[in-house]
Structures are given as C-alpha cells and as structure tokens.
C-alpha cells in the first residue's frame, strides 16, 4: 500500500521536524513517497530523501507552487492521487489549507489532526479541545489525513531514497501571492522546541512581554502566548498556543500569567513537565502543572532568570 506525504517546504527549505514527525506516522501505513513542491524544492527533496522511512521523493518545481497556494498545490496532489491509498501531511497551517481541498476533489472525507494510527483505515483524533479522543474508521477508498506533529517522534536520518523530478499540474490561477510577514528569530521554532515559555494576559503589555522573552532566552526556549495575550497585541499571532493556535508538547512548558482555559490547555497539556506561575492560587492552570508557584510574575520571573 502506498502513501503520498506532502512534505512541509517553506521558501525552498524543508521543515525537517514537522516532515520527519509525519513520516513516523505515515510509515505505519505503507511505503512513503514524499512530495516536495515549491518555486524551488530540489534542495528540500535532497534533505527529504535522507529521512528514514522515505522510500521515494518527488520534486515539483514551478513558480505557481511558490507560496503553497491551495489551488495549484491541491491540483498537483490530485493529479498524483491515483497511485496512492493514503495522502498525508503534517498538520501545519499549509496542510490544513490544502488537504481538505484535495479530499473534496477526490470525494472523500478528510481526517484532520490525527494523533494516532490504529490501522490503515482507523485513526485517533482529539475533539472538543482535546477533552475527548475519538477513534474514527474511514469507509473511503482513499484516506486523506493530517497528523498532529506533537504526538509523533521525528524519524531519524540516514536514508537515501531516489529522487524523481515531476512537473506541476495546470494552475487554476484563482489566487495570487502578495506578501509574507515573517518575524525573523534566532529562537527555536515553537512546535519543535524542547522548552517553551508562554505569557498570558497577566503580563499586561507588549513591553513587559520582554520578561517572558528573557526567561525564554535563558532556557534556550521558544516563546508562546495565550490568545488573550495575542488579541491584546502583546505577542504576534504565530505565538498562540491552544485549540485554535499551535499545539506543542515540549519537555518543559512554563506558563506565566496564564489562567489555564481549556482552549489553552488543548495546546500544551501533553508537555512533559508543566510549570505555572500565577498570582491567583485558584487559577485552573495549577490543576495541570507539575510545579506551581503562586507569585507575582513581575518579581518571580526576574528572580528565576537570575537563579537559573
């Protein structure tokens, strides 16, 4: 049984962590062919060929595929779909944009954010903000699935799969890219970081969010935020952790000035060790914390930075 895996390629570069985690999930289903597409994707294809468990790599380079616009990317995947029983991807915003479109074009359901593989037809996925885990069995001939990366370990490297170049499908030309606003940062990427420090509304302002960043830098951590902190403009949108933001499961998660709403917990409660710093001893975040500290963050965080 063959699996087509849409590798995560951003501006010509392979997002190794997300792709390698999806490979771990995908290789349970059959032989994995990875598709790397973009305006340039050859380098990503080479990198992808080294991931253990990838049997073959397809590289499609075309200006129309440059910014992962849904229409040309979905058209390409559909043109290849005949050979595969499973079409899968890591559950990134790119894949969540493209895969449902692919599924509808194939007249099958999509299975979003699967957190476990039971067998070739059956998958586990969290629903209701992670308050229930559903096991679903697909009756469709083809299965289109995105995998929640936080629940799979990244596959290793050492493989040497064959790389084949293919051409793009016809571009439906329905959309055009205008610009990307990406904040450059030297910090680790949020969804793959070993340590995450997140700030909430309790931090109180954009200026004071520097406290959170200082603690993160001390720990070599990525920075996250609650929705309230993002809505209030203290932190950019791509830092949001939660049901409708990013899902993370680092070795250490430090929640500062975050109350612990279920929507936030949905994005971090699989972290190995959770630390909560909050001045309200009743805050629900303490119910999931391994180590809770009732304190004012404006004194506790600088002290922590100093003593770590």
């Amino acid at each position, binding site marked *: 049984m063959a699996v087509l895996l849409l590798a995560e390629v951003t501006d010509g570069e392979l997002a190794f962590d997300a792709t390698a985690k999806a490979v771990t999930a995908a290789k349970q289903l059959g032989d994995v062919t990875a598709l790397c597409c973009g305006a340039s994707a050859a380098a990503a294809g080479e990198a992808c060929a080294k991931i253990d468990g990838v049997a073959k790599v397809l590289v499609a380079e075309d200006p129309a595929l440059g910014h992962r616009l849904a229409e040309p990317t979905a058209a390409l995947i559909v043109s290849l779909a005949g050979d595969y029983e499973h079409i899968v991807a890591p559950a990134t915003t790119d894949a969540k944009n493209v895969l449902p479109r692919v599924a509808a074009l194939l007249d099958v359901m999509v299975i979003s954010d699967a957190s476990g593989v039971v067998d070739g037809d059956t998958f586990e996925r969290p629903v209701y903000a992670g*308050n229930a885990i559903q096991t679903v069995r697909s009756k469709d001939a083809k299965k289109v699935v995105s995998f929640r990366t936080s629940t799979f370990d990244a596959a290793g490297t050492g493989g040497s799969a064959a790389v084949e170049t293919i051409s793009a499908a016809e571009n439906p030309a329905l959309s055009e890219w205008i610009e990307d606003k990406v904040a450059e940062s030297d910090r680790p990427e949020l969804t793959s970081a070993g340590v995450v420090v997140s700030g909430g509304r309790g931090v109180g302002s954009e200026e004071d969010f520097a406290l959170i960043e200082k603690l993160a830098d001390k720990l070599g951590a990525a920075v996250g935020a609650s929705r309230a902190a993002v809505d209030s403009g203290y932190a950019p949108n*791509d830092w949001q952790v939660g049901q409708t933001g990013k899902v993370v499961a680092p070795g250490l998660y430090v929640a500062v000035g975050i109350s612990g709403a279920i929507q936030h917990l949905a994005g971090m409660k699989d972290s190995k060790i959770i630390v909560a710093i909050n001045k309200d001893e009743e805050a629900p975040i303490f119910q999931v914390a391994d180590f809770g500290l009732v304190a004012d963050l404006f004194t506790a965080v600088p002290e922590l930075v100093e003593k770590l």
Partner: protein
Amino acid sequence: MKVLVPVKRVIDYNVKVRVKADGSGVDLANVKMSMNPFDEISVEQAIRLKEAGQVDEVVVVSIGVKQSQETLRTALAMGADRAILVVAADDVHNDIEPLAVAKILKAIVDEEQPGLVLCGKQAIDNDMNATGQMLAALMGWSQATFASDLEIVGDKAKVTREVDGGLQTIEVSLPTVVTVDLRLNEPRYASLPNIMKAKKKPLDEKTPADYGVDVANRLEIVKTAEPEARKAGIMVESVDELVSKLKEAGAV
C-alpha cells in the same frame, strides 16, 4: 453582491464536555449550545461589509438539528437578512460531516449565487477545519483560509491569513470562500429590539433531499474516550524551590 454565511450550532465553548461512560460519544443532552465562535466572527464581517455598502444581502445557513434555528435567529438578530435551515438530523448527537455539509452548501450556492462565502476556520466541537476548503473545491473557486483581514477590491478579495510562520497576504478572484480566524473582528451583541425584529425575518426550512445530497457519514466513530489525565503536581513555595525541583527533574 450577496454573502452566504454558514453557521454551526455547537456546544458552548465554556461547557466542560463529558465523555459518555460507554465510549459512544460525548454527552450533548441538556448542555448549553451556542453559535460556533468563529461563525459569530463571519456573521459580523458580513454585516460590516453590508454596512460599508459592499454587500446588499447577508444570507445565513445552518445544517443540523431543528434547534439550529436558534443559532440562525441569533445571526438574524446580529443583522443578517435571511436564513436557510437544512434539517439533516433529528438527534443532536448525529453530526453531519464537512464533506456532506459542503455538498449541501454547494447546492445552496448554485441557487443563491453569492459572490462570497464566509465560513469559520473551524468548528470548536470537531475541530476539523475543513468545510470552507471543501466547498471551494466543489465549486472550483479560490479559497482564502484563516483570515485576519479582508478587503474587497473590485472583483478580488485581498486577504491576510494567520499562518504558522506569521502572516501571509494573498489576493483571490471572486467568487471565493474565505474562512475567518479569531482576530478578524470582535462580534457585536444583538440588542433586544433586534432580537425581536429577527423573529419576523424570513427563515426557510429545507432537507438534504431537497438538494439531492446523501449525508451518510464516511467516517465511522469507533469509540470516544477520555484523554489520559495528568497526575497531580505539587505547589512550590519559592523561586529557589522551583529551581531545585526543575534541576532534580532534569528539566533545566
């Protein structure tokens, strides 16, 4: 231009869901249901476009149990003009999959000919994040998902999208499907007079058979289980104690 806004009735986001002991699903009997929060944002956006003179009619549609009527009335009270209810289930536990929802929506779009469909990015019950993209595919239309900014310019929509790396701006040809994210706007509350007025606004009732759509599920739910609970942690008294606990645990 007409705008179509699909709204879903879901468990209220404040309700803590309970998984049934027999693993057959989540208990939805006698729990508070509300409009999917993302759909409040899309209704709000549609009304703002109408207030700005870029849209002449806002049609809301819901697919599900008969009680989805209440959700439609809420949208009408916010300012939508007209509603379509597609009664597709008689038990609230019987949810309709995005593919079937998208097929029904396609039939409605064919009839109503809107220039824009505004969906929520995801429904907070099943978190599938799929319906809008599926509708765009079935229509052969463009799509712009996870919108945090939307501007209609001539026969195009300029949309800023919240993506993993930050923000992406794209321009899509109309007609199009846009799915809305949290930061697009802050939805208004319906005023009491508007709630009264909404009761008189037109609400059409249909069934999937009217549109010739088979709503049989493609995914069978084998079981629904509670996630593993975290084991209770401890409270520390000071930063010093926190640091030593973290060192003991090998976390720093």
